């Protein structure tokens, strides 16, 4: 029996497989179809202080190898999340796993407020916070928080001061080098990294000559981004001791194992769930089988276990 437990900083996961934010609702929507015993955590959809309507429709477009989406972070605010969604999660899911609460804000202060509100709830099923820094900073004229290492460090530090929960920062992939952003997370006091968020992308309807998405552009996810994500996880692992939650185009165990060998402690399944909700369970079983076949007693031994000259 392979020991599947991993630790993403202080977050204990019973398997190295989680779900990715925005693709798994608040953890309970897929409950009928999911074997939670194969999951180590679920990540909730991004939440801010107040309700937010999200983008106009259409919000997505299927492309070869994945999906471009601009949902726009619709949600009902942190109070509703804590009172209703966490309640439903604990009621609906039989064998629940820790929830990673994905948070965002339009200012550094809002990030800290959301983090404080989630911490204050002290919900036993809330296991960590994940900061989505790929959303527009209203004060800084719409640049995202994750775009500039200085801004990133500052917002991470503010959230760090507001919470004792394990703090994961989710980084954007469209950077020349991930290293300055990792330093910012380290300096700000992050406990772990999530890699990668979607890649900015756009689809144009050539017959109507308009962008397909009402928001014009969106984020590319799914199989198409996997090789780029592996590279970023590899680079990140070589640059830091912070544990990494890797995501981007995991469709089968092989993809997850690539991430772990590149340096991830755990992986999250996003877009693949839409076409195959049993992906997470299959990935978990596949990781276990691989460990057995290759003589690893524990899944955590896979992290960074690349053989390099």
């Amino acid at each position, binding site marked *: 029996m392979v020991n599947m437990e991993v630790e993403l900083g202080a977050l204990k996961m019973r398997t190295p497989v989680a779900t990715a934010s925005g693709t798994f609702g608040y953890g309970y929507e897929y409950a009928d179809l999911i074997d939670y015993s194969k999951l180590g955590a679920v990540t909730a959809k991004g939440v801010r202080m107040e309700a937010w309507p999200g983008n106009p429709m259409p919000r997505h477009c299927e492309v070869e190898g994945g999906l471009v989406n601009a949902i726009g972070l619709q949600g009902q605010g942190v109070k509703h999340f804590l009172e209703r969604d966490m309640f439903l999660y604990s009621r609906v899911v039989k064998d629940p796993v820790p929830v990673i609460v994905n948070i965002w804000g339009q200012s550094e202060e809002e990030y800290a407020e959301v983090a404080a509100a989630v911490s204050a709830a002290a919900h036993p099923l809330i296991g960590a916070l994940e900061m989505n820094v790929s959303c527009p900073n209203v004060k800084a004229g719409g640049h995202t928080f994750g775009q500039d290492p200085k801004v990133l460090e500052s917002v991470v530090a503010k959230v760090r001061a507001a919470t004792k929960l394990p703090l994961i920062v989710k980084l954007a992939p469209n950077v020349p080098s991930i290293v300055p952003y990792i330093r910012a997370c380290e300096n700000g006091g992050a406990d772990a990294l999530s890699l990668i968020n979607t890649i900015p992308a756009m689809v144009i309807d050539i017959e109507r000559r308009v962008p397909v998405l009402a928001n014009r552009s969106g984020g590319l996810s799914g199989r198409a981004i996997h090789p780029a994500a592996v590279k970023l996880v590899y680079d990140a692992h070589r640059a830091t001791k912070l544990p990494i939650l890797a995501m981007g185009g995991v469709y089968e165990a092989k993809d997850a194992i690539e991430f772990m060998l590149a340096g991830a402690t755990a992986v999250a399944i996003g877009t693949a769930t839409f*076409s195959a909700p049993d992906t997470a369970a299959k990935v978990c079983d596949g990781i276990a089988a691989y460990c057995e076949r290759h003589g690893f007693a524990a899944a955590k031994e896979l992290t960074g276990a690349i053989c390099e000259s």
Partner: protein
Amino acid sequence: MKHDEKAEVLENREFAAGYRYLVVSAPRQAAEMQPGQFVHVRVPTLERSALRRPFSVFNAGDGKVTVLYKTVGRGTEALSKVKAGEFVNMEGPLGKGFPLSCKGTAFLVGGGFGVAPLYFLARRLPKSILFVGGRTKDDLLALDRFAEIGVEARIATNDGSAGEKGFVTGPLDAAINEFRAKGEEFELFTCGPDGLLRAVTERALELKVPGWISVDRHMICGMGACFACIQKTVRGNSRCCIEGPVFKAEELVW
């Protein structure tokens, strides 16, 4: 409870130009499916990252689920090539369906493949009339199936090739006037293109009769998990796949 069944294809045949019936064996879904609910079908020959395709249920029972679909794009095109004996992954029952009771006569107002859930509904309601429109008579689907179960159809086509010439609102408004003149009760149930849904919504609100509107939106998950399938309602941005696809007329904001 939602299921994801590996459903054997029992039948996948064209019944009108561009329109097909797909009958699959999906016992758990067949047992629980309600009219107005939908299924989410994975087309096996598309690449694995392709999204599922949502279809209203045309009929369910005896371990089988039937959908009626139009080949419009690469997914339905590929689906049309799947043969009996092959398997498709199908999620369902999904969404909130129609109510299964109705005061007086159910006015079922359909356009295109919108008649699919109305047929399933008609099988469960004691008394209904189908109002159906299309550009030509070839757009009128499954009329024989409605006739089989004793549902009268009132028809309009743009070119007059079947029924009245004009829009389906013609026979609908005539019936509304007729029923109101006689003081008979009716409710409105509709599924079809947005224009039709709005026309029916307006009438329901004006007449203050219950109106049940089934809204189609492009979907990613079909489970309420992704917020892709939005329809504006009095509650804000609602998810069609879980708060709908059937909404009450007074909920909708167009």
